[in-house]
């Protein structure tokens, strides 16, 4: 496959940035999208040019590092995948592919396609945890949890914090990310202890960091590589409103 790439280049956080066009040739349809970018970067290095900076780590869809807004969609034109799981067979020979970084006030661009997603860590630090005293390992099954609750908590825990929800949301909202964590803990007895404080602290931090609000378009659920349901957002809303009513 021969492809034309239109890629966002930005020297650093202060640079205003621009799109630049590149061509890559003889790409196998079985190449992953990130491998195709590796090939491009190899060519650029041989030509003495600056390679394109992009985030990646595990390349098996679990670390959440790879981002990229590809042809108008977070993680590109496929469902329930991260960019490292996207393959070139999803494109046609001769296509022009537009590659942009996640766009959000809370995710500033560091360089080219790399954005700073530490805002997610700040939200988790505000309340996305449980406090546990140190000591011996607790007995297994000491706290019985209904299967349905454990399953729902586990589904919410599938979030890898990639930021596709923020990237695709027309409001740049982090509600699905936050709802996944709140829901995962709210469904377990261990998480109930700090539930009231958690919902308030995390929502306050999200608002403070410049994320938008949720207007329930559902785009986050559709583009989430782990298929996390927006029903968790309803639970987050419930947890938050109940917590506020107790104030």
């Amino acid at each position, binding site marked *: 496959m021969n492809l034309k790439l239109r890629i966002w280049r930005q020297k650093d956080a202060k640079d205003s940035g621009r799109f630049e066009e590149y061509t890559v040739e003889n790409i196998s349809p079985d190449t992953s999208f990130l491998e195709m970018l590796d090939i491009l970067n190899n060519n650029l290095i041989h030509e003495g040019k600056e390679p394109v900076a992009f985030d990646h780590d595990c390349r098996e869809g679990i670390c959440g590092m790879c981002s990229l807004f590809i042809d108008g969609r977070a993680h590109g034109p496929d469902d329930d995948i991260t960019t490292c799981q996207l393959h070139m067979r999803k494109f046609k020979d001769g296509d022009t592919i537009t590659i942009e970084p996640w766009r959000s006030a809370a995710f500033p661009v560091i360089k080219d396609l790399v954005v700073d997603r530490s805002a997610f860590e700040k939200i988790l630090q505000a309340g996305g945890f449980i406090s546990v005293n140190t000591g011996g390992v607790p007995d297994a099954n000491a706290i019985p949890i209904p299967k349905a609750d454990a399953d729902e908590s586990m589904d919410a825990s599938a979030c890898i914090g990639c930021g596709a929800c923020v990237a695709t949301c*027309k409001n740049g909202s982090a509600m699905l990310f936050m709802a996944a964590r709140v829901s995962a803990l709210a469904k377990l007895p261990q998480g109930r202890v700090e539930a009231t404080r958690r919902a308030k602290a995390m929502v306050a931090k999200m608002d403070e960091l410049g994320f938008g*609000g949720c207007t329930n378009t559902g785009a986050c659920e559709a583009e989430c590589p782990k298929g996390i*349901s927006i029903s968790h957002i309803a639970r987050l809303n419930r947890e938050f409103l109940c917590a*506020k009513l107790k*104030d």
Partner: protein
Amino acid sequence: MSNLFSSSIGKKLVMSLSGLFLIVFLLLHMVLNMTVFGGAETYNAMCEFMDTNIFIKIMVPVLAAGFIFHIVYAVIVTIGNRGARPVRYRVQNLSKSSTWESRNMFVLGLIVIAFLVLHLYDFWANMQLQHFVGGEVAESPYDLVVSRFANPVVALCYIIGVWALWFHLQHGFWSAFQTIGLSNQLWIRRWKCVAKVYAWIIALGYTAVVVYTYLCL
């Protein structure tokens, strides 16, 4: 309750509660409109009843407040959300991941507001405004309705307004319950289904009154 209405979820709560209140009002208004099918006497009697009912007198300012809260918070939420993405994407394809109406609630709201202004000018200004500022109300509300809808441009404007409302309700109805937190994996599907049915009832009901008045009277 501290700072509830300055939080992003609190602002959406105001949108939801005021929206649900307006949704109930829409159904009541539609049922009352349908008295036009009963002829001049029935319609004018309904207007007379509404004019003199103490409950309605109390609810008029409450209704106005409902509209104002819904519109003001829509502006606040929309401006805030646009600020969350200062640099836009060059290419963004949201048609696969969300419905058109869910992404365009503000634009649809603007169309509904334009319709509302026309509607207040046409009827409220001739039938109820006089109760507050003095003057003569229209002698026969029925004749007023018939004369306004005899104009095809006016009739068309009303139909456009009603179908913008159809889009608005398709998303707004279930979204309100999601924001309040009265939803889960099962109920989200139920609310979406109820929202569709409700939006169709409202849109067809209002359209039927305009079309009947234009064609048959």
